[in-house]
């Protein structure tokens, strides 16, 4: 099966990968590509990195269960969880930890070994030119704190000779693709993207890797941080744009991707707490759009010349719905609407004592208590929080009315669905189940996802008209 290796560099890479995972769960299609995420962030204790790993594990468990047929595998479902994600460690059957302990309290000056230089060594002047005294004193356990000059040195070491990079090259096959996600205003992404590109295009002993069809999404500044002087942080969002300009000037002559997507905001609409340890940044519309770049990339053929792409919205509103975003966003809105409807069914069905599929398909108490359904429930809980963050952030992605169960016909703003409440979806699930006479498998979990999707899609497909 063809694969796309998705390198998620830094905090933005992690958040965009989260959005990719949510969109895949919602039914967005990777055009037959298996997604292999590779997460590169030296920030050791970053909560959102751990959360992403948990999310990916849950997705994989749900996907694997949905195609399980005892000793054989079924074709992927159409709809929810239709595309495969596999970790690099699973491809390689061993642990390939991209979380190498470059940090752990070590100062950058120690990392580059300035103490080994003689007092009169001329290299001191070089170091003073390239790095400030603050750069040299910073510890690496929380990443590069918006300093790509530091990131370039450390990440270069991280990639060179790393087991995971060797494993990536080993498992890369002719029709596979590469996609790199990074921000251009931070420390890790800004340095990591060109470094990684260089390593890939420099893999002369692996021609398949060297000549791979490669795409990248570069995220321009889209949020600010509270004043660094009041928080004691070393990250100052006042110079995000300066760094962006410097990085873009560098990219202009050095970028090696076949498709380069630029995503950004018109201004820094949201200001977060400046906590370099926690980096507790809520899900943002820009990350969602950056995620959509992967799905676009996977549909495109190899271009004759490098392509630079971006996308816009129809109307500059603080809270976006389908009409203010534009018709080009129908697929994203439908996917998110579908999954939020799935959430309604997941919450309601365990309480329906007389739901017919309880008898007909075994959706009984044992089914709902089983680890598979519980995994789905936990994943869905994370999904709900993710969407809620998107809907409350600045700029908000809020195309749904999802808090009115008594009238669900307005579920998607600006459209009227025929389904007035959840009983419409329940009935459609029953009807689809009754129509399905195939005896191909007895996987109840798969039937649940299949009939739920068919029921939801029968109403929400109207969005494409």
């Amino acid at each position, binding site marked *: 099966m063809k694969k796309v290796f998705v390198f998620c560099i830094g905090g933005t890479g992690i958040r965009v990968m989260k959005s990719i995972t949510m969109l895949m769960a919602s039914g967005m299609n990777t055009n037959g590509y298996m997604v292999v995420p590779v997460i590169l962030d030296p920030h050791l204790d970053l909560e959102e990195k751990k959360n992403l790993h948990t999310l990916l594990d849950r997705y994989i468990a749900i996907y694997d269960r949905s195609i399980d047929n005892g000793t054989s595998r079924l074709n992927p479902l159409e709809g929810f969880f239709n595309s495969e994600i596999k970790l690099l460690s699973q491809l390689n059957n061993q642990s390939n930890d991209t979380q190498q302990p470059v940090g752990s309290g070590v100062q950058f000056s120690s990392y580059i070994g300035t103490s080994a230089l003689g007092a009169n060594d001329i290299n001191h002047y070089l170091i003073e030119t390239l790095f400030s005294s603050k750069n040299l004193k910073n510890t690496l356990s929380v990443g590069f704190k918006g300093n790509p000059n530091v990131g370039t040195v450390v990440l270069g070491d991280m990639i060179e000779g790393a087991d995971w990079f060797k494993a990536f090259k080993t498992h890369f096959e002719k029709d596979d693709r590469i996609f790199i996600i990074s921000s251009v205003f931070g420390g890790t992404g800004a340095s990591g993207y060109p470094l990684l590109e260089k390593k890939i295009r420099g893999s002369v002993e692996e021609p398949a890797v060297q000549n791979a069809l490669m795409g990248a999404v570069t995220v321009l500044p889209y949020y600010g941080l509270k004043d660094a002087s009041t928080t004691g942080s070393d990250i100052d969002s006042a110079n995000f744009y300066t760094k962006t300009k410097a990085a873009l000037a560098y990219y202009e002559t050095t970028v090696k991707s076949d498709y380069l997507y630029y995503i950004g905001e018109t201004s820094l609409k949201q200001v977060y707490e400046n906590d370099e340890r926690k980096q507790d940044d809520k899900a943002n519309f820009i990350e969602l759009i950056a995620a959509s770049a992967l799905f676009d990339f996977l549909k495109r053929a190899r271009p004759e010349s490098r392509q630079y792409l971006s996308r816009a919205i129809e109307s500059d509103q603080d809270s976006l719905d389908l009409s203010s975003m534009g018709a080009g966003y129908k697929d994203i809105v439908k996917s998110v609407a579908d999954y939020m409807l799935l959430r309604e069914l997941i919450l309601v069905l365990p309480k329906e004592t007389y739901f*017919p599929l309880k008898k007909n398909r075994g959706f009984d108490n044992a089914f709902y208590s089983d680890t598979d359904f519980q995994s789905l429930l936990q994943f869905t809980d994370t999904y709900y929080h993710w969407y809620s963050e998107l809907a409350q952030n600045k700029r908000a992605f809020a195309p749904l009315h999802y808090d009115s169960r008594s009238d669900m016909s307005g579920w998607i703003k600006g459209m009227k669905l025929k389904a007035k409440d959840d*009983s*419409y979806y329940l*009935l459609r699930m*029953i009807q689809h189940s*009754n129509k399905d006479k195939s005896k191909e498998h007895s996987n109840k979990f798969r039937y649940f996802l299949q009939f739920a999707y068919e029921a939801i899609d029968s109403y929400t497909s109207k969005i494409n008209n």
Partner: protein
Amino acid sequence: MNCLLLYEWILGSKNDFLKPLQGNDAWYKEGLNFWTKLENNSILYIIMFIIVAALLVYVYYKPFNEIPGRHFKIKYWAYFGIAALVSSFVLTFGYMYIAIPPSNVEGALSLELKLAFASALYSALVYFLFSCIWCKFLPTNAYRFV
């Protein structure tokens, strides 16, 4: 065809009805006439409650459960059962009122009410039996709880 035997458990026998009227020839003759008309129409009472029950079973398991609204819940099945009961009662009593001229014989009205009541109960029973058959053999979106 004397299907009134099906109702004997609640109506009593013909003799039980006519015995009190034996002292008066006119009342006896009227009472006998009344009972005979009841007997002659008895097959129709049975056909009525079977049709009512069958129709309501069909409507519940097919068109009603093609409409959203959680109609698969047991309470709706029960409502349809009650509807079968009430409809049979009303139809049976109504038919007797039209087909059999009113009689002033003592106990005639009571007999008609008892017959209609018994038809209602039979209708509920047939509703239940037809529901079992439907749940076992025929397609539906409803919960097959019987």
